């Protein structure tokens, strides 16, 4: 028997009967249905049917519904760019969320931004889940349409006049003004702030970040002499050691980091090399999941671990003490050796907002000589420029009542700081309080004036992510509402009423002297500097380190950011709420993650149904919160992990009352915000909660061996090997393919018609498991491109989510510290597609180009296909999510996020503007699934035909492919021998197909995951012919 064992959840790990029953079914039993509630009987149904059929006939006989055709009319008095209805226009722009930025192309149709595409000309082009989802935020119905005064609608003219007069009065009397901002990477906003301060000199500008990296800046101030966050070139590092760092997940410049990280993580036959990644971690993040070796440590042990590591690499430091876990102790020794062997080609990173930890990291990197090669201060980031200490001082001063005016520049401290009450009181007491939030958020609700900022897709701006590099922001649509850019508001109040577009134009000229048109066209300008850095002062850093105090009491808690809603500013974006967390696969909630052994101890692991999770009461420093419990394999013992960014109260119908707000539970360590704490207690309440959890269903089971096979052959879903073995044998981990080709070369069901793809196109896809980091940007991109509806927590709980593309996450090994594998799973477009031959109406069948096509209008909803799909990628429209059946009565549907049920969010005219007009919205009662973005295939072919030339490889890219910045997904034509797909299928030793032994002949090839481990773990599957 195979000794490989992969699992996705507790139930699968234990193979509980409930799990087996659930997984064997395609459709989870729904606990209650509306029909049952209403007591609709079969007779009623027939009566209704009879009526509706005759009514339809009568109605249709009487008149044809009239539709209007409105031409695209141009006001000839204005200079309007020419728009061709039906053809997309692209505008180069830049997205930033304060910790990351992306150079993007905004795709607009008939003037509406509908999708972001990566700006491939920029080294920083790409996509993140946040950037992809941000288009929907433009059409957020909860945005303020006009400025408000005391929560009543007002006009810019009157608001401006009042604000200016009040500011002048306050400034004249020497009253202090607090300008509270988040990280400002905008050059224009910085200028505006300067002007504002010049005009009102009593202004104190305080920047803070909800999730702060202040300690990094402060440590660098001590050891390097400047408070920078350096750029780290992960592609130049052979050994990467992370200490609670999530540099490819939610950290600073994660997109650029992940590109560089993956660049050195995909071995090939020609270049069988990859970096080694060690991760010391309390909770499991994407970064940890991608590491070759992980060592669980509690948050309080991090400093001790770093002291030990520093000693291990030859540094002189006192207070070396062994860690509690044997793995971690051995790990420090191993890592120390490897780091010494890779001097100047390694990096140690930590995201912990703790000064001593950051100083230790600097000391280690300095000793190893990593500055100037891997660590680059010449290109220091402008992200996360918040100052925790300044915020703490401000809070003290506000409490003392020394500020007469408070202005919140797109910041929300009432929600996301520990000084929530201080700010609340201060706003109420202040003579003047202004917020530039785009909605009446937690802070803005108390402010007298809310001067709504425009969305970035409606704005002119220049973003500077790091020195000498600039991202250009240009409007892709005129402001939908009477909003004004925050920078323009500040300039206005400073007495400068210049049009913001002209300010930006002048600024571009003054920065580079380059052609303004070039900036508009390319969307970025400037060049990263050559990497350089001076060596840090190691002894100064070490001098500041105090020995670790005695052991902590109680459980330790880690507060982390999820890659979906982030720090909470994206809470009202349903796409991000419904994007499953890469590790826990939970949507729409935060929860308390507990380590596996702890769960076992508490008896939580034996829950009957995994979606009905227990609710625990967690008490932290005297405050307690009730949260659902999720078991997280690989989490450090004695540690709990809870995400911040939830529990919004004033974000909008999608984000409000989702999860609990954990910001008030953070602590301050000498004015520096700490994202971990100790002394927590955990007790079960006896209540349970229905969690919107994916991947305990719609999952591939490796035990799906067909009983008809003479010998059980455990299939191939995830294949793995080690770099050592891969270097010896290119087909390592993939040896069974020969056996499969030999013994499983036919299908069990011989009625499949053979397909001839000898000419024309035969579409295919390559998914590289080494390049996929599990970030989820592709999932969001797919949903936006293909009008995939968001369904809400309750529907996800009922296993009725609609994602065409999911990222399966598999664990294997020791449940307390397993290896993790991510596997993007979408329709495999099998040649022998089991879904096709069970459809009674031939609604799904094969195209001449190898696509498994789905004709929605033909589908009658038997769902046989979904039942028969071995990859579980077909989705059924249980409800009319997108008003497709509503016959134009779109406005009758009201926004209904009752219990996070996003059922009718697409009933709003405004929200519907985001829909892709080239893809139909599916109505209730039909199946849908991944189409390989057929609309893009058709578009690509058409432009080739129009130009009268053959279609080039790479011309057609699926939405998931464009969103994948690490090139884990590559789409192409198998018939084009020059295409990446054809070449990979033909020559790569790592290529395999999922469940290949069943002979479905899928069109998606996966590349064996290679881990840079020294030896093959005993648990790995090793192919032995006699067992098969």
């Amino acid at each position, binding site marked *: 028997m195979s000794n490989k064992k992969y699992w996705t959840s507790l139930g699968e790990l234990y193979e509980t009967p409930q799990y087996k029953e659930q997984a064997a079914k395609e459709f989870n039993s729904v606990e209650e249905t509306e029909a049952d509630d209403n007591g609709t009987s079969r007779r009623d149904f027939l009566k209704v049917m009879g009526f509706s059929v005759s009514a339809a006939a009568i109605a249709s006989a009487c008149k044809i519904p009239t539709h209007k*055709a409105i*031409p695209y009319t141009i006001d000839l008095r204005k200079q309007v760019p020419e728009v061709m209805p039906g053809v997309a226009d692209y505008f180069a722009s830049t997205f930033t969320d304060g910790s990351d930025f992306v150079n993007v192309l905004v795709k607009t149709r008939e003037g509406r931004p509908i999708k972001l595409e990566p700006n491939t000309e920029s080294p920083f082009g790409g996509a993140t889940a946040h950037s992809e989802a941000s288009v929907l935020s433009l059409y957020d119905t909860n945005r303020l349409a006009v400025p408000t005064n005391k929560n009543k609608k007002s006009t810019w003219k009157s608001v401006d006049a009042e604000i200016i007069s009040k500011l002048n009065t306050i400034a004249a009397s020497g009253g202090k003004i607090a300008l509270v901002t988040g990280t400002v990477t905008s050059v224009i906003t910085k200028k505006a702030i300067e002007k504002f301060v010049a005009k009102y000199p009593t202004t104190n500008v305080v920047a803070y970040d909800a999730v702060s990296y202040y300690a990094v800046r402060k440590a660098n101030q001590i050891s390097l002499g400047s408070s920078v966050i350096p750029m780290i070139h992960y592609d130049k590092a052979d050994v990467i050691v992370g200490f609670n760092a999530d540099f490819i997940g939610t950290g600073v410049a994660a997109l650029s980091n992940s590109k560089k990280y993956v660049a050195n993580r995909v071995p090939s036959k020609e270049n069988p090399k990859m970096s080694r990644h060690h991760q010391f971690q309390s909770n499991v993040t994407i970064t940890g999941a991608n590491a070759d070796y992980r060592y669980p440590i509690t948050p309080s042990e991090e400093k001790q671990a770093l002291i030990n590591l520093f000693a291990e690499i030859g540094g002189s430091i006192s207070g070396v003490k062994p860690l509690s876990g044997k793995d971690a102790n051995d790990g420090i020794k191993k890592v120390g050796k490897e780091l010494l062997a890779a001097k100047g080609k390694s990096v140690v990173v930590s995201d912990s907002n703790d000064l001593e930890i950051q100083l230790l990291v600097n000391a280690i990197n300095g000793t190893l000589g990593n500055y100037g090669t891997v660590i680059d201060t010449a290109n220091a980031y402008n992200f996360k420029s918040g100052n925790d200490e300044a915020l703490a001082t401000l809070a003290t001063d506000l409490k003392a009542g020394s500020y007469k005016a408070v202005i919140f520049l797109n910041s929300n401290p009432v929600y996301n700081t520990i000084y929530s009450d201080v700010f609340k009181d201060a706003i109420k007491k202040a003579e003047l309080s202004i917020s530039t939030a785009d909605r009446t958020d937690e802070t803005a609700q108390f402010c007298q004036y809310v001067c709504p900022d425009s969305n970035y897709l409606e704005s002119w701006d220049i973003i500077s992510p790091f020195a000498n590099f600039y991202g250009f922001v240009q409007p892709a649509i005129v402001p939908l509402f009477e909003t004004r850019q925050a920078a323009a508001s500040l300039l206005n109040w400073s007495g400068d009423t210049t049009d913001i577009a002209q300010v930006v134009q002048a600024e571009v000229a003054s920065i580079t002297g380059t052609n303004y048109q070039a900036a508009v066209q390319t969307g970025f300008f400037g060049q990263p500097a050559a990497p350089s850095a001076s060596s840090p002062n190691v002894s100064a850093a070490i001098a500041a380190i105090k020995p670790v105090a005695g052991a902590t009491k109680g459980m330790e808690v880690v507060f982390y950011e999820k890659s979906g809603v982030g720090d909470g500013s994206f809470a009202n974006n349903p796409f991000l709420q419904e994007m499953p967390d890469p590790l826990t696969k939970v949507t729409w909630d935060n929860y308390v993650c507990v380590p596996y052994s702890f769960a076992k101890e508490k008896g939580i692991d034996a829950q009957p149904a995994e979606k009905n999770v227990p609710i625990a009461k967690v008490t932290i420093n005297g405050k307690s919160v009730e949260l659902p419990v999720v078991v997280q394999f690989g989490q450090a013992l004695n540690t709990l992990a809870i995400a911040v960014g939830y529990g919004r109260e004033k974000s909008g119908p999608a984000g409000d009352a989702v999860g609990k707000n954990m910001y008030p539970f953070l602590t301050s360590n000498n004015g520096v915000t700490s994202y971990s704490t100790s002394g927590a207690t955990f007790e079960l309440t006896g209540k349970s909660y229905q969690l919107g959890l994916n991947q305990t269903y719609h999952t591939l089971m490796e035990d799906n061996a067909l009983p008809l096979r003479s010998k059980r052959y455990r299939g191939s879903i995830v294949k793995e090997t080690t770099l050592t073995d891969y270097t010896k044998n290119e087909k390592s981990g993939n040896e069974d393919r020969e056996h499969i080709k030999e013994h499983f070369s036919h299908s069990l069901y011989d009625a499949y018609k053979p397909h001839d793809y000898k000419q024309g196109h035969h579409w295919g896809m390559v998914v590289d498991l080494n390049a996929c980091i599990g970030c989820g940007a592709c999932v969001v991109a797919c949903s936006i491109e293909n009008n995939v509806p968001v369904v809400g927590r309750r529907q996800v709980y009922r296993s009725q989510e609609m994602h065409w593309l999911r990222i399966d996450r598999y664990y294997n090994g020791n449940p307390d510290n397993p290896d993790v594998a991510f596997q993007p799973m979408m329709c495999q477009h099998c040649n022998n597609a089991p879904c096709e031959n069970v459809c009674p109406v031939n609604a799904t069948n094969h195209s001449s180009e190898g696509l498994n096509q789905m004709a929605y*209008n033909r589908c009658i909803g038997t769902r046989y296909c979904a039942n028969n799909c071995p990859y579980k990628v077909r989705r059924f429209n249980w409800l009319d999510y997108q008003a497709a059946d509503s016959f134009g009565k779109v406005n009758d549907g009201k926004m209904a996020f009752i219990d996070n049920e996003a059922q009718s969010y697409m009933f709003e005219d405004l929200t519907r503007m985001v829909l892709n007009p080239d893809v139909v919205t599916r109505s209730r009662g039909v199946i849908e699934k991944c189409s390989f973005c057929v609309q893009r295939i058709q578009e690509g072919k058409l432009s080739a035909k129009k130009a009268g030339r053959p279609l080039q490889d790479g011309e057609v890219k699926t939405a998931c492919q464009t969103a994948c910045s690490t090139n884990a997904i590559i789409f192409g034509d198998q018939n084009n021998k020059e295409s990446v797909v054809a070449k990979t299928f033909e020559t790569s030793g790592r290529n395999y197909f999922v469940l290949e032994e069943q002979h479905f002949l899928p069109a998606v090839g996966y590349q064996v995951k290679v881990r840079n481990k020294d030896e093959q773990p005993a648990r790995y599957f090793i192919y032995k012919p006699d067992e098969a």
Partner: protein
Amino acid sequence: MHSCNPIRKILSLIALVLLLTVTSNSVYAGFAVPDVAAGDAAGIQNVGEGKALFKANCAACHAIDKKVVGPALGGIWDKWENEAKLTDWIHNPSKFLESGDPYAQVLKSNDIESPMTPFPQLTTDQINDILVYLKNPNAGEAAAPAAATATTAGASDEGSSNWYLWALIIFLLTLAGLLWSVTSKLDKVVREKEGEVVEDVPLSKKIFNKNTLLVLLLIGSILLVVNIFGGAIDLGRSQGYAPDQPIRFSHALHVGQNQIECQYCHVGVEKSRHASIPGTQICMNCHKYVQEGPKYGKDEIAKIYEYSGWDPDKSKFVREPKNIEWVKIHNLPDHVYFNHSQHVKVGGIKCQTCHGKVEEYEVMKQFAPLSMGWCINCHRQTEVKFAENKYYSVFQKYQDELKKGTKSKITVEDIGGTDCQKCHY
């Protein structure tokens, strides 16, 4: 008081101007322009050349019988002193004005929006041809109306042939009935002669017995089912749909008579999935100048001005344009993706193939059934432009077969044109 009363002065000036305007015909005696008789071949040729010149040079601003931008040109031979002066005016109007010619001054004082463009390239002969055309605009076109009448007569034949058909059917039925009664009577006579007692069943009973009723019922139900199915299939289809539109726009006039290319207004047809309905900005390219139509006069064009925000008196756009809410005629269901550029640019399909003879439509209508069967049929029959377009080199097998001659043509269906996801996604 020796000084003139200023009001009197102004009034008398106005009177003078009015007199001049009214009697402008009589400023000069005018000059003669020849008439062209029906048989005058040389004259007709002159008219033809004049017409072409008029269309190329003058028609943007002038019409024969009405004021457009410039004044109506019919009868100008009566207004000018001689042809030489007219020629000078045409060659360089502003220079001619300086000569102080009284009629030129009249023209200047008239409310003309813009000064006339100089046409120094027109020779005296050409101007003469134009004048001949202006005097005889219809010369040489006498035969055309007769031909038109003939076509109309041909079209009305269809109705009469139907009537004959019905008469024939009734005649045949009557004949059948007569023959049947004759034979049955003869049969009766023969059988009676042979000694059989034949019961005299009335004709009505013979027809309306149980069996025939059953047969009728069967036929009736088949017809009903066929009808219901046909009706159900046709649900939502609207071939021939020609709704009233907010503006009575005539394709017959624009495309048929004025020969405007389809793409001039439907700009997207080769570039986009939508052929696109022109906005008022495209209408106004011509209708800034063409202010009156042949059928509805100024009424319909005034609507365009209203929508586009154009003030014809001030000759400029004064308001933001409003949307014309045309009634959509071609309503494809949401689940069908159709791309005009694929068919027109790549496939080279004529607009008329799907839209009918639009150049003859006074009111736009849906010509094709727009049913799936109609689409599929065309995809089955239409040949792909395989040789011309290098994109199709990807179909190597077909290319070889075409070369060898084993295949004579490649249809859209051959290259996957009937796949579901060519139109449904």
